[in-house]
């Protein structure tokens, strides 16, 4: 029964790229769903969130293939729940699993999908629009979603019986070390964001955000709302000066 659930959750999650890249792949979402399916929603949320933070930096940007957070998130959460381990153990499992998942995924990208996609060129030659469209659908399901979900399901079926023993056999200092790692790893995700948007002019906001949280204990949502307020102020100010400039140029100001 739980094997079927894992298969369905995996199919759903690997459909992320078929359903508008709507973040169905992220461990925060998969962990919560696995928790729901395994009857321990609260643990699922906590483990999922911990894995999410640890793998925050793992996101496909451009053409680079990142660690496969789906297999890591689903299996890490499932194994941690069935062995009654903590979130640190979930992260410890999620990292190697997502590395292996990356290999499987590359197999799809390099071998399976191109093999199916090739048919599209033939259909195009004959002007067969439906044939091309059909190839895309077949490729999405049988070149990616199904094979990937099968990998996760197989890993679960094989791993679940032994996982409890494996987790119990890990020495204390390693277990503690993994909890430490789970505390440091979120920084990697934040650094990747910082490296993308860093601009000396924006540095004060980084300090403001830090102080609001570290000294004043404001939650992230609260800090983000203050940021949203500042953005609005900036937009209003921009608009005032833009009106002054464009009044003579006769421009329309449609902005996002």
């Amino acid at each position, binding site marked *: 029964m739980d094997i079927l659930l894992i298969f369905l959750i995996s199919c759903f999650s690997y459909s992320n790229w078929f*359903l508008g890249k709507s973040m169905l792949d992220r461990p925060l979402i998969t962990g919560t769903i696995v928790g729901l399916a395994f009857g321990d929603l609260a643990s699922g949320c906590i483990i999922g969130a911990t894995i999410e933070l640890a793998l925050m930096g793992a996101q496909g940007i451009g053409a680079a293939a990142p660690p496969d957070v789906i297999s890591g998130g689903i299996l890490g959460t499932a194994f941690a729940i069935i062995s009654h381990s903590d979130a640190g153990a979930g992260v410890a499992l999620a990292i190697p699993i997502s590395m292996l998942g990356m290999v499987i995924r590359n197999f799809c990208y390099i071998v399976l999908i191109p093999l199916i996609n090739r048919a599209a060129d033939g259909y195009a030659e004959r002007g067969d629009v439906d044939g091309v469209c059909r190839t895309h659908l077949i490729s999405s399901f049988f070149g990616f979603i199904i094979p990937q979900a099968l990998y996760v399901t197989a890993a679960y079926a094989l791993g679940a019986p032994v996982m409890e023993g494996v987790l119990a056999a890990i020495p204390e200092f390693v277990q503690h070390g993994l909890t430490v790692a789970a505390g440091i790893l979120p920084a990697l995700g934040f650094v990747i964001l910082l490296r993308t948007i860093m601009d000396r002019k924006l540095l004060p906001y980084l300090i403001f955000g830090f102080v609001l949280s570290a000294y004043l204990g404001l939650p992230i*949502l609260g800090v983000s709302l203050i940021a949203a307020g500042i953005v609005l102020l900036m937009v209003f100010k921009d608009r005032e000066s833009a009106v002054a400039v464009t009044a003579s140029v006769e421009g329309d100001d449609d902005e996002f």
Partner: protein
Amino acid sequence: MSSKEGGSKITKSDLNKIFLRSMTFEGSWDYERQMYLANAFTLGPIIKKLYPLKEDRADALKRHLEFFNITPYLATLVCGIVTAMEEVKANGGEIGGEAISNVKTSLMGPLSGIGDSLFLTTWRTVTAGIGCSIAMQGNPLGAVLFFLLFNIPAQAVHYICAIKGYEMGSKLLVKLSETNIMKRLTRLTGVVGMMAVGAMIASMVSVTTPLAFGSGDEALAIQGVLDQIMPCLLSVIATAVIYWVMGKKPNTAVVLVSIVVFSIACSAVGIL
């Protein structure tokens, strides 16, 4: 209806189809031509509608099976522009197939740069951070909130781009560079990104040391001293070090594993 002179053949429902079909934009991604097949899939109904002849369809299909890669939420912008151009071409206008390919090629680079940093890096990290802070208390609303906060703006842009892209056709590029919208948008989201990251470094990165001077009741916990200097001091140091390391453009997976190994080593000797 379709033979009306000068009348547009493309309707709102065609653009809706582009939006819906573009949801699958990375479904058949491969290393060779990346999102090319999804691009053809998205434009399929348009090609069928505009070109009744097999030869013309074959031409258009081949044109849209060229290499393509873009942040999926902005894919509709290119598809919308391309639809407008294909329509002109189909009606005997002066646009050649080459021009359409060129527009695609020239748009995907800059748009992906903006889209990836806006949505996949900034907005994803901020919304996931908000979601995690709630989920950490065992609350499933964290995941729900993350899903909604991320997708409402992302999919709204996804939809609007299809409509606007078609309306403005190839003129859009000029407009974008004229008004500097993208540059300003990047700066404004940068403010939210920076503040959220500052807060998340404080609340979600957690590094503490069990070290102490002396022993027994006299022991002075170093963590207590550090907290008096500045809260989250070790988290800030850890983030700063990783920031410096990432500046050397290493493989992210290697950094990830190194952090785990480093943590276990520190745990073994009792520093962290």
